[in-house]
């Protein structure tokens, strides 16, 4: 760590020191990382609004809510396994979060190629997740007849919440996958070592960019933890 910031007080006195220093409030935090955190905080509120309105719809309807365990069940080898696809999707997304954390570590250690490989693995994990989600949507729309305004299982609001919540999350994953591929290419080419300027911002960057990318990706995983609990399990 930087020798100046190492002398800073820690814990609560560190908090008052940093905020009262009349300078940069978030010491040791690069501006890009602070901005990503603030964005993620706002995104947290968006997803909270979705999940809270799900709660409101479910608690206020007099019609029975569809049993997610049966709706998302999968028929494998003649046996009906509840929530199988969703469980696999959860494990895939957690795995990609793990490879992302390792990519960040290799980035800071300047192991360029290892970092790029792990970014690529993460992107492929994300792609698998989106692929399985596309499969799930196809199954529910064409075979089960679930629509945003009606479904054969119970309360009509179920469909609109399913498509909105998982759709919004899937969009986040897709955007993340695109950026992971871009970052993997930049890392492989050595942009962060050579100080090459980015094609869009025309600014030099370094391996902090990988950590910022990682924050976004872990957040996508984090949101899935809550969707898994509240939409599929509850």
């Amino acid at each position, binding site marked *: *760590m*930087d020798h*100046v*910031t190492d002398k*800073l007080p*820690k*814990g*609560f006195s*560190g*908090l008052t020191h*940093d*905020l009262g220093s009349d300078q940069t409030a*978030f*010491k040791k*935090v*690069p501006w890009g990382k*602070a901005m990503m*955190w603030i964005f993620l*905080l706002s995104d*947290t*509120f968006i997803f*909270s*609004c979705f999940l*809270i*309105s799900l*709660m*409101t*719809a479910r*608690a*206020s*309807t*007099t019609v029975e809510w569809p049993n997610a*365990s049966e709706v998302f069940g999968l028929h494998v080898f003649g046996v009906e396994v*509840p*929530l199988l696809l969703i*469980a696999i999707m*959860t494990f895939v997304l*957690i*795995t990609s*979060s*793990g490879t*992302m*954390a*390792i990519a960040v*570590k290799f980035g*800071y250690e300047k192991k360029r190629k290892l970092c790029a490989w792990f970014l690529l693995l993460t992107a492929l994990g994300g792609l698998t997740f989106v692929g399985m989600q596309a499969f799930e949507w196809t199954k529910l729309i064409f075979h089960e007849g679930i629509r945003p305004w009606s479904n054969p299982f119970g309360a009509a609001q179920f469909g609109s919440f399913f498509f909105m919540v998982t759709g919004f999350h899937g969009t986040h994953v897709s955007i993340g996958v695109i950026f992971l591929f871009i970052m993997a290419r930049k890392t492989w080419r050595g942009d962060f070592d050579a100080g090459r300027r980015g094609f869009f911002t025309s*600014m030099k960057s370094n391996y902090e960019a990988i*950590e910022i990318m*990682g*924050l976004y990706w*872990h957040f996508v*995983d*984090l949101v899935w*933890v*809550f969707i*898994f*609990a509240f939409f*599929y*399990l*509850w």
Partner: protein
Amino acid sequence: MAQENKQEVTTHKIGIYLWIWGLLFVFSFFSYMVDYLNFEGLLRWTLIVAFMFSKAALIMAIFMHLYWERWAIVNVLLWPMSFILVFIGIMVAESEYTFFTRLIYFVVGS
């Protein structure tokens, strides 16, 4: 922006990430088992929420490095989230009210 502090960032051993990864797998498996074994009622909700928060805490603390960040940013991030709890409280009251009016007008009234 020029990077004025050329910092030598200390990284963590790969083992800690693999450990957290394993723990997340275990917690996910447990929360799946809650559904598979058909736990019902308060036990189900308690277990789901417990596993959910354990996973969220591990991801935020270790994968997102919040454990090693300074308190200035940690507090700025975590305190606003308490408003979500307030919002949940408001909407619970609201949905109960809606539910009872629906009972009265749709079910009893029809």
